[in-house]
């Protein structure tokens, strides 16, 4: 080791508490670097929505359009693919690695504001979901889907889907912080299925019957899909957009409420 370093004990601390924006940027910067260093994460995350989009269109387009249930099935399915692409995307696995490897403790030893430990990861999640949503959107455009709301509508479409992805991400974070267990975090993917399939994935709400119709009424994804579909097929329908955002916000409050409680529990018990 060298003998020329300056590690002298200071007359006062060199360290000090920063603003919440600075703390958030620091955590986000590292998390976003992590996103770009795990390209293997994106490939399966992209395959799922593309696969379902192609299969669903291939299987149901003729039936739904010929029977008059849906006018443009590709436009109907594109929001589903966006939801499939962004739901469950998070840095929760990386958080578990931090917990198990001790880096999370190192973060807790710094004067950083605790909420930014989650918020910074969310910033990285936003980058991830946008990176997943854009190729899916491009695929839809290539296959002939056109937006009534134009280019701005497309941007809103991606942001809208990303907001849903962020809202859902609170669940895997809650599990990661509560358990510190990678297997438990991976199993959080199970939550995706009821949200993604007990809704208007294949048919519009009017065509659903019985219990599925009831469940779809209470599933927030129904309103997110309505909002996304309205951007493609109907133009700026503020009521649909507002309902979808309200559903997203409600889920975000729930999931990040759980994640925050798990964070407090981990900090308290660590």
């Amino acid at each position, binding site marked *: 080791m060298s003998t020329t*370093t300056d*590690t002298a004990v*200071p007359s006062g601390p060199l*360290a000090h*508490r920063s603003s919440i924006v600075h703390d958030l940027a620091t955590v986000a910067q590292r998390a976003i670097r992590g996103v770009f260093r795990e390209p293997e994460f994106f490939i399966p995350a992209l395959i799922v929505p593309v696969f379902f989009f192609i299969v669903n269109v291939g299987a149901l387009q003729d039936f739904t359009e010929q029977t008059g249930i849906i006018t443009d099935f590709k436009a109907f399915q594109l929001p589903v693919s966006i939801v499939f692409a962004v739901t469950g995307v998070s840095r929760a696995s990386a958080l578990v690695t931090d917990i198990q490897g001790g880096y999370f403790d*190192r973060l807790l*030893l710094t004067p950083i504001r605790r909420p930014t430990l989650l918020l910074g990861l969310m910033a990285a999640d936003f980058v991830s979901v946008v990176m997943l949503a854009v190729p899916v959107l491009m695929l839809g455009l290539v296959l002939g889907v056109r937006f009534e709301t134009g280019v701005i509508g497309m941007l809103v479409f991606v942001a809208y889907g990303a907001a849903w992805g962020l809202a859902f991400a609170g669940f895997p974070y809650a599990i990661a912080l509560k358990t510190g267990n990678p297997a438990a975090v991976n199993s959080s993917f199970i939550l995706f299925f009821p949200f993604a399939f007990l809704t208007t994935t294949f048919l519009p709400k009017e065509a659903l019957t019985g219990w599925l119709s009831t469940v779809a009424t209470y599933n927030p994804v129904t309103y997110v899909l309505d909002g996304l579909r309205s951007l493609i097929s109907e133009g700026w329908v503020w009521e649909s957009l507002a309902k979808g955002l309200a559903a997203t916000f409600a889920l975000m409050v729930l999931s990040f409420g759980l994640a925050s409680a798990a964070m407090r529990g981990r900090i308290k018990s*660590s």
Partner: protein
Amino acid sequence: MTAIEARDLRRTFGDNEAVAGIDLTIEPGEMYGFLGPNGAGKSTMVRMLCTLLRPTSGSATVAGFDVAKNPGEVRLRIGVALQDASIDGKQTGRELLHTQGRLYGLKRDDITRRMTDVIDLVDIGTAIDDRVDSYSGGMKRRLDLAMSLIHRPEILFLDEPTTGLDPSSRAAVWAEVRRLNSEFGMTIFLTTQYLEEADELADRVGIIDHGVLQTEGTPTALKRSIGTDLIVAEVDGDTAVAAAAIEALPSVSGVEVHGNELSLATADGAAVIAAVAVALNGCGVPVRALTLRTPTLDDVFLSVTGSHLAPGRNTSASTDEESETQEVAS
């Protein structure tokens, strides 16, 4: 103002009292070694002092601030290298140091300057720009140490800093820790299960076992408390008979028996050992080894806890300066 002070500090996990009422006072600039076996409570003590773990009861101040009531002020003033090098393998060494500087709120210029300082310190060369996943255990440890120093802390906590390191990496860490303390006056709280590490580095040593501080003092004073010389006999037969034979000698005041080992402390071992050898020979108990040496911290540990700290005690406990081992009989 003391650097670290603990009063009746306790921490329980369910029914297990990991730290059972420890009082501690460490002065600024002191290097304090906390010595004990695995599970003795060392890491729990460190985690409480560095604000990662709330004490169940009692109180502690670090750099003048209460760890439970004012943890934020404590965190600004301490550096911590925990037992396992806690670093993110997906980042490069340089990125981790930069992030660490930002986490401590250092200004841009300070980060640049301190990074130069500590990169020089860790001596990792061009690998500083490689991802940490590719580092050896020793490199990770040194980077971990550098990260704990980026904000120039007043007090440094090192939790078993050399566990798992090869001898040369261990020597390098020792040299740096010694320099941080001697040249810069940094207060260092070091936990270790290695006797020679505590002996080499610490100004004072506290011996902890079962969550209780058994004794503390300078290494020299602790060893002197055992006696100037120590005669140790390993026997194969009845230890009670052998102990009685030795205790009958006029120059011996007491014999301690631990397993098949008898030890007696004396002011002049060279004068007594011949008589001990004759007494053991006369009582008919086979003697495997008879050793005269100066006491080690392991002897202190044995004296206060009733068991050795290290399985290979005689090799790990002694240093070249203190151990004048003389095999007399085998």
